[in-house]
């Protein structure tokens, strides 16, 4: 009989049960550890019951999504990551916005915008901006590809795949491409009555990029990746 309990809950959610969690304290801890999952947000401990594809395991107390596997998620993420890679390079190089007022024209790329702060301590701001909107998203895409390609091909994990994935997760809040995109909208509203503003090819690339970055983050089930990195051949 399965020691795991599950009931039909709405919204395809698998509820993890902990009705007999107290038993774990008496049993050999080493044996029990692999059967446990702990919510990183509120420290509630549960017995593992791996949800099926498309289902989600949610913490009962703080409602954090703990496991959310999807069918072929790895392939989807790799495909999206490759698209993001090309779009970042393209969006950084091609002209992004053009301005035209009384015969004076100016075209800028995203790199120009990032490097707009010049002189003295403003250099720091330029480097930070360039990092937040181009280099950190780029690094995260490269790390994701490096970690996931061997996993999806059922090969042994790449060398240093675990620190690579850890770095990629640590950089997640610092990847601000989508915030930059909304910033563009605000800036355009501010300049619109001053001059004619036109969109370069990079603008549309950047728009697609933002959607893809968000999609990529929502496909990724971190628990599944960690699990696969730890047990490369089994599951």
């Amino acid at each position, binding site marked *: 009989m399965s020691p795991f309990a599950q009931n039909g809950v709405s919204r395809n959610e698998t*509820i993890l*049960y902990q009705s007999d969690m107290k038993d774990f304290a008496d049993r050999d801890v080493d044996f029990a*550890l692999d059967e446990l999952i702990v919510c990183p947000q509120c420290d509630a*401990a549960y017995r593992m019951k791996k949800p099926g594809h498309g289902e989600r395991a949610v913490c009962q107390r703080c409602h954090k999504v703990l496991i959310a596997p999807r069918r072929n998620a790895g392939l989807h993420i790799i495909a999206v990551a490759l698209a993001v890679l090309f779009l970042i390079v393209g969006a950084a190089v091609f002209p992004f916005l053009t301005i035209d007022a009384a015969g004076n024209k100016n075209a800028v790329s995203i790199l120009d915008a990032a490097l707009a702060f010049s002189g003295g301590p403003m250099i720091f701001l330029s480097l930070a901006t360039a990092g937040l909107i181009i280099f950190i998203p780029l690094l995260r895409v490269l790390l994701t590809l490096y970690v996931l390609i061997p996993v999806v091909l059922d090969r042994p994990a790449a060398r240093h795949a675990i620190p690579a994935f*850890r770095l990629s997760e640590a950089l997640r*809040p610092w990847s601000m491409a989508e915030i930059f995109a909304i*910033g*563009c909208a605000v800036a355009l509203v501010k300049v619109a009555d001053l001059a004619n503003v036109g969109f370069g090819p990079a603008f549309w690339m950047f728009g697609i990029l933002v959607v893809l970055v968000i999609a990529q983050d929502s496909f990724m089930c971190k628990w599944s990746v960690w699990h696969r990195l730890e047990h490369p051949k089994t599951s």
Partner: protein
Amino acid sequence: MVCMASSGTPENIVTARELGIVACKRCTKASPMGVDRCPRCNHKLHSRDPLSLQRVWAFWIVGFLCYIPANAYPMLRTQTLFKVDESTIIGGAVDLAHYGSYGIAAIILFASVVIPLAKFWAIAYLAISVKQNINFSNHRRQFMYEIVEYIGRWSMIDIFVVAILSALVQLRTLASINPGPAAIFFALSVIFTMLSAQAFDSRMIWDVRAKGRSRTS
């Protein structure tokens, strides 16, 4: 082994700490108490990080100190044909309101004054609430923490707007926009409040109730 299909009343939640287990904050792997680093991802393990609150307050104070010059110094230097205009964050919004753009003025005030101040208040409130028994439900505080973590990054939008404007509006004599010294302080303030929110160990939110429960029962 029989499993009760209970509806999951939160009062019955057993924490990893009560089981003598430490969970990795980064990869969620469970380890026995006393293990120093996560065997899977090598992240430092703490059942509750003892330095969490100190770091929260340290980053909070630096962030707040940076926020003061961010408002006092000009954010944008606008140069038009005959005059140079230096405007602070609030001054810029007031100017926009004078020209009749009440909507944009409100958005700017909300994004760069109301949200940062609310964030400082929320982080301070959360940090105080884990030390003292405050009559505010854990779910609400968890929700507040999630909002602070989510909104924190979005304050950077101001800096990006300044960056785009100063790169784009360089029309020689006609008009040019350059960043003012407030931009760097505002960016630092956002970065430090993000670090402050990240240093907060959200598991402490739920410990207060657990303590209260053991006192009542």
